[in-house]
């Protein structure tokens, strides 16, 4: 399969990239790992006249700890990097776990978090993980800059609020409270190189190892046109003592938030049943992780 013709730019500064974007407008695409974009271009679903690479712009591929309040992740950080970062594994567990389940090693070495978010596939791995961690996305254009909570970023399959002249320049997530644990579970047909039939990210915060639950966040992927938070299930959990029974009930409530479809990968009925099972399973895993929390 042949790629359509395009001109290729490798700006060396962020400013230069933003200027190119503002000049070329809708006819340009940012290219990070290219694992989504090049596939779509080969299928002729997209035919941008210009590609603007992020490769040479310094700093976009860094994970930076913000003292005691959070972490900033550059949009060009690869899934491979996310999956083995100690800080993320420890404090922002769903992101690291989700990144470790994305594709297979060759894909993870190229695929970036920015590409995964902007691409906005309903079944993508990183959006639910970013949602439970309350991440904020910084979008920049040549003349403007704004911050958007990740929960308000997605509009539909492949659709986000980002403007053609904007670049996603960083992702910030606040450090979760003490006694927090996180989990991520993905259900697909095989053990790697899978598109989720259902995926679920969870964060659970305990007042102390003895409970009760003081905060819970649950986000589900592949169950609606955009990843969704299971707010009702979260509210149900808050104030309760953690138990298998409580987690199971939260799973049942979680299903209510979803409107999965039937397609060739799975039926609506099975997906609903799995939302229930996997939500309670992820909650249990997050709870176990919370118990191992260390200052």
């Amino acid at each position, binding site marked *: *399969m042949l790629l359509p013709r395009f001109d290729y730019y490798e700006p060396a500064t962020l400013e230069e990239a933003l200027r190119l974007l503002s000049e070329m407008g809708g006819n340009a695409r940012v290219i990070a790992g290219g694992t989504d974009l090049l596939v779509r271009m080969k299928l002729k679903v997209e035919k941008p006249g210009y590609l603007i690479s992020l490769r040479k712009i310094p700093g976009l591929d860094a994970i930076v700890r913000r003292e005691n309040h959070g972490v900033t992740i550059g949009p060009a950080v690869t899934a491979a990097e996310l999956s083995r970062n100690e800080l993320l594994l420890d404090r922002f567990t769903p992101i690291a776990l989700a990144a470790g389940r994305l594709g297979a090693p060759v894909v993870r070495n190229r695929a970036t978090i920015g590409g995964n978010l902007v691409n906005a596939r309903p079944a993508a791995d990183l959006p639910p993980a970013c949602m439970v961690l309350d991440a904020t996305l910084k979008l920049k254009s040549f003349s403007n800059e704004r911050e958007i909570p990740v929960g308000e970023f997605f509009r539909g399959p492949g659709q986000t609020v980002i403007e053609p002249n904007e670049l996603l320049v960083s992702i910030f997530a606040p450090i979760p409270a003490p006694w927090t644990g996180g989990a991520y579970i993905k*259900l697909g*047909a*095989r053990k790697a190189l899978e*598109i989720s039939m259902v995926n679920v990210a969870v964060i659970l915060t305990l007042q102390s190892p003895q409970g009760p639950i003081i905060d819970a966040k649950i986000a589900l992927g592949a169950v609606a046109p955009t990843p969704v938070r299971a707010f009702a299930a979260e509210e149900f959990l808050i104030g309760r003592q953690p138990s298998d029974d409580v987690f199971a009930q939260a799973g049942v409530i979680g299903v209510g938030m979803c409107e999965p479809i039937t397609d*060739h990968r799975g039926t609506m009925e099975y997906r609903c*049943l*799995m939302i229930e099972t996997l939500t309670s399973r992820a909650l249990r895993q997050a709870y176990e992780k919370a118990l191992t929390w260390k200052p």
Partner: protein
Amino acid sequence: MGDYRVLNTRAPRVDAVAKATGQAKYADDFSMPGMLHAAILQSPVAHARILHIDTSKAKKLAGVKAVVTSREAGLIKYGVSPARYDETLFAHDKVRYVGDEIAAVAAFDQATAQEALSLIKVDYEELPAVFDMFEAMKEGAPQIHAEFPGNMNAEVHQEFGDTEAALASCDYVVNHTFLNKRQDAAFIEPHSCLAVFDPSGRLTLYTSTQVPHYVMRTVAMTLQIPVGNVRVVKPYVGGGFGPKCEATPLEMSCGLLAKITGKPVKMTYTREQVFLHSRARHQFFAEMSLGVMKDGTMVALKNKAVLDGGAYTSFGIATVYYSGSLLGGPYKLRSMKYDGYRVYTNKPACGAQRGHGGVAHRACFEQLIDMTAEKIGMDPIEMRLKNIMTTGDMTVNELDMSSLGMKECIETIKAGSDWDNKKGKLPRGKGIGMACGFFVSGAGYPIYRSDTYHSTVVIKLSEDGGVANVLTGSAEIGQGSDTTMAMIAAETLGIPLDNVRVYSGDTDYSVDLGAYSSRQTLMTGHATKQAAEEIRNKIALYLSEELDVPVASITFSDGIVKFDGGAGNFDKLRTNYIKEHRGWTDPPSGEYLTFREAARLAYLKAGTIVGTGKYKPPKLGGSYKGAAVGTSPAYGCSAQIVEVSVDLETGQITIDAMTDAHDCGLAINRTSVEGQMQGSLSMGLGECLFEQVKFDSRGRIINPSLGEYKIPTALDMPKVKSIIVESNEPNGPYGAKEVGEGAIMPTIPAILNAIYDATGVRVNELPVTSERLFMTLKKKAEEA
């Protein structure tokens, strides 16, 4: 087994360095000055009459050198077996599936060729289409080929003994049905071909195929070139598994366009086109009844098959025979009845794929045996052993098990997997299962009726005496046949493997039917051995005359010649040789005469030393209709035990371990045998758990990519314990027989039997996705 110097070792493959360093060239790597790029126009609709084709705009596009349709190609019918030639290179009156070929173009570059395709205008009158095999058999269904009413492509009815009477006499009759799904072989290298037509009228195709010989014949026939003027060269091939066993529209189009333009023409299928061309595993529906006595003796098997053939026949005639004949063993039966139907539908044609015709029916049968064993309260291994065939047995359908280590295979996996401590003793969610199977070592007859040899081989010694050059038309497609032939030649000549070079895959070298039906080790192997023996005899005769010693006293091994097992007196020869090579820095030394000296001197006496070998099977099989399909000079067999974990809350299956034994006769190369065993397991695992070519309601493939068509990843494969069982096959070269396909036979039923052991539910439809298993479990729980 014999005391071999080269055979039965783990010698590195002869192509290892070329492949590891990237020097190995595949068809798409070839390029020539002035080469044109071709592309094929394929039907976007599943069933339609073609009213008009307008190529005028495409022809006018700058850079386009030729546009061809059925008008240029003609309407010569071709196919695989002459009994059912039902294809023409390009559709002319009708298209019969999404992907049916209509036209081809050759242009300067691929982008121009693609643009030209978009300029060809075809007017269709859409016809109702039928995609389901059972629908296609119904009265009033859309008719796909006028010559085949009721969409019935082929029917087989065979009976051995009186099956109904035998079933009536049984203590138990157990029934089962089974449905697999259409597969894709998912080889890594898409079909690719470069065609060169030289001014003398000779066409050469460099093409990714398993069968240079059949491609040569079909292309010669359809393009109307004398068969001697077509040469097919197979470069390195990135896998075939069956679908590359026949000439493709890609090869014929390249040939035609090269003939018309006089320029080299190349084309490579996209992955989607590989799916559209298909010729992979059929969808089979199996319906079976097994009759047994209380003590576990198997008596009678009734077997029905319905095959979804797609729009054309391809290998389908053989396929529909195999689904019956390959259940004749490895268990003794008194009678067997088979009714098979292959049905046309408006989908890509299915053909042969690893385990040709046997895999789905074997899966049904081996489940049925477990169900029966359970019913009579017998361990499934015990029941199999009770009925097992051994060397020398003949099946009811007259397949001769000239060697059969089936019992040894079962016993060794039983011990190797700790079966006795696991079967029936694992917690819910964990299970163990087993199954057996057997397969041909080469089909007894060529695809077209002929007295041709199936394999001929020429070995030519280099005139310096140092190297044996093996020339064969056989096809190395990744399975290791070049290494096998090199090892057989080296062993027979008594020289080191390094001193053999194999030139293969070229119809100019020799006749060889190619890499299908697991035939080359046995058949090309025989011819190679015979050619090497002739050379050995020639040299021995020369030495005998020169030194006045009996031929029988001369032996060759490790590149050294011995006389009566010792050095003998060969001073005269060494002196001659050294005189011949005055000034050379590597005069032969040592106490023994070397093969190189002997071969050089023999050449000086008699000219170039050449040996030829040939093989064709003796007349095999019974005299009933279809008796030829399933016959083989030898049968390989295997048994497998699979251990699984099932996540009862999601239905997800993890294969924890596989223990696999295969009787391949003598293992020529032990590493290659294990490679085939493990490759078969992985392919069977994929078919069992994940793989399915899916269509939308208009007959378009939904998942024509390796992203969405799911073959197992490394993480899905369990630890495999491969145990080689070596019977001594009297009809095989050095006692060798097949491993390439037989090893896949037990995999699916062994997994299904293990899932049953883990969950108590029998799944009779593939693939066993987590959803299918979960829903089956749920239904069972609700019923209870």
